[in-house]
């Protein structure tokens, strides 16, 4: 089981590495969006410190969403997806591997860059740390839920906009809890409860969404 999972992840990472610009584009999109906000609202430090968690999290949501179309589209175009569906290995497991690879090339870089971005917003060290931890726990959930949307909209016209309509409302809990963790830390409260909730969401999504994605893929490809 783990071997299959590792094989799927390795393959997707290799493919992503061969097309580095795709990965970097998502990352730069995230950085640019976060940077634009202070330009829009003004450089007042206290205000920036207050809105930082929400801004970073919303930008992460958008960045994760924009990269979703890539998740299955190229495999669908070159026929590799059909081979995955025909494979004797359990499809939810393969899907889990693909979502994990998607997180490694989008969520993980975002998490690492967020530490640098929190300097822009003058976040305290502990708040910046909690922001990174909350992103590390929350962005895999975004990849998992997003995979459902990506699988359902596979090969549809206007797929990109449609994904956002389907997926963004489902992202709401992650956004609230993730940004809430940072705000709690900034207010001098304990963020542990939020982080545990995020971890719970991650486990819940990791167990359930692969089945939904597998069903959606079979519907979209049949």
């Amino acid at each position: 089981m783990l071997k299959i999972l590792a094989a799927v992840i390795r393959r997707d990472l290799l493919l992503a590495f061969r097309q580095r610009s795709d990965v970097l584009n998502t990352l730069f999109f995230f950085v640019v969006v976060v940077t634009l906000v202070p330009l829009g609202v003004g450089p007042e430090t206290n205000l920036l410190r207050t809105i930082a968690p929400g801004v970073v999290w919303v930008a992460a949501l958008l960045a994760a969403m924009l990269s979703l179309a890539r998740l299955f589209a190229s495999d669908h175009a070159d026929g590799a997806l059909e081979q995955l569906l025909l494979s004797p290995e359990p499809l939810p497991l393969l899907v889990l591997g693909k979502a994990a690879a998607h997180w490694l090339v989008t969520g993980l870089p975002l998490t690492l860059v967020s530490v640098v971005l929190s300097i822009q917003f003058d976040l305290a060290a502990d708040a910046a740390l909690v922001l990174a931890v909350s992103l590390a726990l929350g962005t895999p959930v975004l990849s998992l839920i997003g995979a459902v949307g990506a699988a359902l909209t596979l090969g549809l016209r206007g797929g990109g906009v449609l994904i956002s309509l389907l997926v963004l409302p489902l992202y709401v809990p992650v956004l609230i809890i993730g940004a809430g963790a940072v705000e709690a830390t900034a207010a001098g409260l304990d963020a542990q409860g939020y982080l545990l909730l995020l971890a719970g969401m991650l486990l819940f999504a990791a167990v359930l969404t692969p089945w939904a994605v597998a069903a959606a893929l079979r519907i979209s490809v049949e």
Partner: protein
Amino acid sequence: MPGKTGINWFYYAAPQTFYPLAGRLIPVFAVLAALLAVWGLYIGFFVAPTDHQQGESYRIIFIHVPSAWMSMFLYVTMAFWAGLGLIFNTRLSAMMASAIAPTGALMTFIALWTGALWGRPTWGAYWVWDARLTSELILLFLYIGFMALQAAIDDPRRADKAGAIIALVGVVNVPIIYFSVQWWNTLHQGASVSITRAPTMAKTMLLGMLVMALAFWMYSIAATLARLRPIILERERRSDWARELLGKGT
């Protein structure tokens, strides 16, 4: 396959037999909806006493609360039919789900609209980031997502199944969204705008609200069936019975 009651429940699961039944049921539910609405509005506007805190503006709850109830109930019903269609591959259940969605979205919209009208005199703002309001708005987004997905897919079978998956994912998510929004709100500001803290409701108010809820329910059934009939005809247009029926009409 007759059941214990002697009624064949599966008989009407076929679009062919349900189509005329729906046609007969629509007037029944429509008339029931109209009568109940007249009764409920009469109680709401003439019998129910004026609220000593909110004055006359509270009377919008006779529209607001039933539509909010229906908006949530219809989403679960929609997901139920969609799931049934996905599991048993029954065509009619999937058509039912797509027929329910616009009514559900309408109910959500009415609930938000009337809520805004009520909020202006009561809270002094059309919109506050209250947990109930926010989750109702997200519910509207979920309805829109469901309809947008079905509209984007040309093949009706794929549209049915894809819609079913997003409806089921949504149903699992609705409680999570509701509680996270509630928690988010209570952390930011106290529950200053809670409806539950209002004084206990007078019996006539409750009666009016329940009658109106029944009226909305009957309306939803009638509207859903009315929307279902053309869907059935469109999907079954290549079958003999539909051709015969359509040929008769022209």
